[in-house]
């Protein structure tokens, strides 16, 4: 049984022009100690998926479907049940450690406040946990760091502190929303290595959300690609990278800078723009940008097709093309 099992998750947000579905019928699992990567462009619903797990959707947002966590249905939780879940069972780190740590509170308060609340430990015990955590995430001089404020640290260090804070109550699942996007490239690798190590040392399940396939390729066990609020393809990382079947995934992989074979060849890109929230195309949302689209794509929602036991795509056309034909 997976740690997290999401079925038919649909997230509806209130926009200026009425309700809009940001996530549509999304289903996925995260196993114990597994790292799942969710990838997609901005506005594809990745972050809303994560926030709905914690019941933290933005103002007037709502979710339907089913979210089973550790054998328990949590989507219909009360506020109180959600609070007991957050930080304690499911922790989250955010994109920009410059803004996700409170600028006016000391590191000690930010590392221990949820520990004090959830586990009812003494202040001294909480401080000891905080010191251990800072050492775990490789902050030099943890004792001095406790009394410091976030502004005294660099972006990479702040993200390490945010990770330490997320681990304080020993959660089973860590959601990392674009954990490296706001950081310099040179410190990104360190954060990814840290996440990987935490999974190995603590049997932590991790859900990484990013628009950067490069990040996912080095970190994740499985990848789920989202487009316009829906899954388009999912499978083991190596298989997705080597044998992507959905035209969108292929486009993303072709657009990776590492794929440029010579200086003369320009970076490839997917034509067009991702659709805006509330304005998703009918049928397969990707069809206006898809070179393989046929008439049925415009009207029918694509069903799922298993490529292998763990690899599936949502595209009615492409499985009949070989992977070579799809590359252009």
């Amino acid at each position, binding site marked *: 049984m997976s740690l997290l099992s999401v079925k038919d998750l649909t997230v509806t947000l209130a926009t200026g022009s009425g309700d809009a579905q940001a996530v549509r019928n999304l289903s996925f699992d995260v196993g114990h100690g597994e790292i799942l990567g969710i990838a997609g462009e901005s506005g594809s619903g990745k972050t809303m998926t994560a926030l709905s797990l914690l019941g*933290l959707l933005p103002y007037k947002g709502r979710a339907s479907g089913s979210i089973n966590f550790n054998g328990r249905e949590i989507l219909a939780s009360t506020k109180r049940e959600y609070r007991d879940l*957050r930080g304690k069972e499911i922790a989250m780190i955010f994109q920009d450690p410059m803004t996700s740590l409170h600028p006016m509170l000391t590191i000690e308060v930010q590392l221990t*406040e949820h520990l004090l609340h959830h586990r009812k430990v003494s202040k001294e015990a909480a401080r000891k946990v905080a010191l251990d955590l800072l050492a775990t995430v490789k902050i030099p001089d943890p004792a001095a760091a406790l009394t410091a404020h976030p502004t005294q640290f660099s972006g990479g260090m702040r993200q390490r502190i945010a990770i330490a804070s997320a681990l304080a109550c020993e959660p089973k699942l860590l959601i990392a929303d674009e954990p490296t996007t706001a950081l310099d490239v040179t410190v990104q690798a360190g954060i990814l290595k840290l996440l990987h190590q935490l999974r190995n040392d603590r049997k932590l399940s991790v859900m990484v959300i990013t628009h950067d396939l490069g990040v996912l390729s080095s970190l994740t066990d499985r990848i789920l690609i989202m487009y316009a609020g829906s899954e388009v393809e999912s499978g083991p990382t190596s298989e997705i990278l080597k044998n992507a079947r959905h035209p969108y995934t292929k486009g993303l992989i072709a657009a990776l800078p590492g794929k440029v074979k010579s200086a003369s060849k320009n970076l490839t890109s997917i034509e067009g723009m991702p659709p805006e929230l509330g304005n998703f195309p009918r049928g397969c949302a990707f069809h206006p940008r898809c070179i393989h689209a046929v008439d049925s794509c415009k009207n029918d929602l694509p069903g799922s097709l298993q490529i292998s036991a763990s690899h599936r795509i949502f595209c009615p056309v492409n499985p009949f093309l070989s992977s070579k034909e799809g590359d252009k």
Partner: protein
Amino acid sequence: MEPVLGKQGLKKRLLSGTGFTPFIVRRLLTSILLVIGVTFISFTITQLVPGDPVAANLGQSAYSDPAIVAAFEKEFGLDQPVPVQYIKYLGNLLQGDFGVSLSSKRPVIEDLREYFPATLEIAAVAVFLSFFVGLFLGIVSAITRDKLPDQIIRVFSLTGVSMPAFWTALTAFYIFFFVLGWAPGTGRLEPGGEPPANVTGLFTIDALIAGDFDTFKQAFSYLLLPAMVLAIYAIGVLTRFTRASILEILGNDYVRAARAKGLPEYLVIRRHVLRPALLSIITVAGVAFASLLAGSVLVENVFSWPGLGQYAYRAAIGLDLPGIMGVSMVVATVYIFMNLLVDILYRVIDPQMKDSK
């Protein structure tokens, strides 16, 4: 903006250090400069306004007699050139001499001593009321956003900022005095009431010092309604600003992060939202409180409250330049003091904040 003083270590440290004491010293120095600037501006403006103080203060027959006019001008120094008048005024000010009021014929400083405590008394109660009520309503409004409590509070706060003070004063007086009979009436005490021995000039405090609880109760009941009317505007401003400020902070990542930790909502609001919100709230509060003094002119006239507002009104009508200057100085000093207080509170709320010089 800082004057360069000697090279002594202490002076240097006080003027350029980043600690709390140097910060206060620097702010006090700039405050003094500001007060001097205020004297210059208000003096200039009183000279520029059309109107002849001699004509305003002498009767028609006296005004037609050049000898009386000359004597009046000589007595109040009006025959001197304006810059000389200003320098003399500044010199006298340094000795605590605000000049002699043209209308009351008493030293302005004595007038201020008599009238300012009355205003201070209702203003202090109004400040206290509006800060806590405004903050409370603003918080409730923000956390019940778009729900019923928020809707009700928004209507009230909008009404509070939109209604002119003289109208609220009259309406409140009519309802609570004539119709309901809850308020005792006008003035600071009941007619013929004996004020307590003068220590601070604040009747409530003085009554407590004298141990006279009946007078305290009476003085308090008389000041409550004018203070509440005076507070309405500031409550409206603070409620609206607190709500907006909290809603803005609520949208920050660090609030989402705090909620993602599973903290109870009161802790999220108190620790993660209110502290940063307070920084901007006290800025507005400082200005709103200082502007209570301006509101007091109208409120005091409606309630026959013998305070600075009434004095300012009479001084303005009578073109009583020393009186007007005296009131301006008090109001300006209150503004500057409020700003100083706000700056100090900034550093108390966020000790990380270093004075940017």
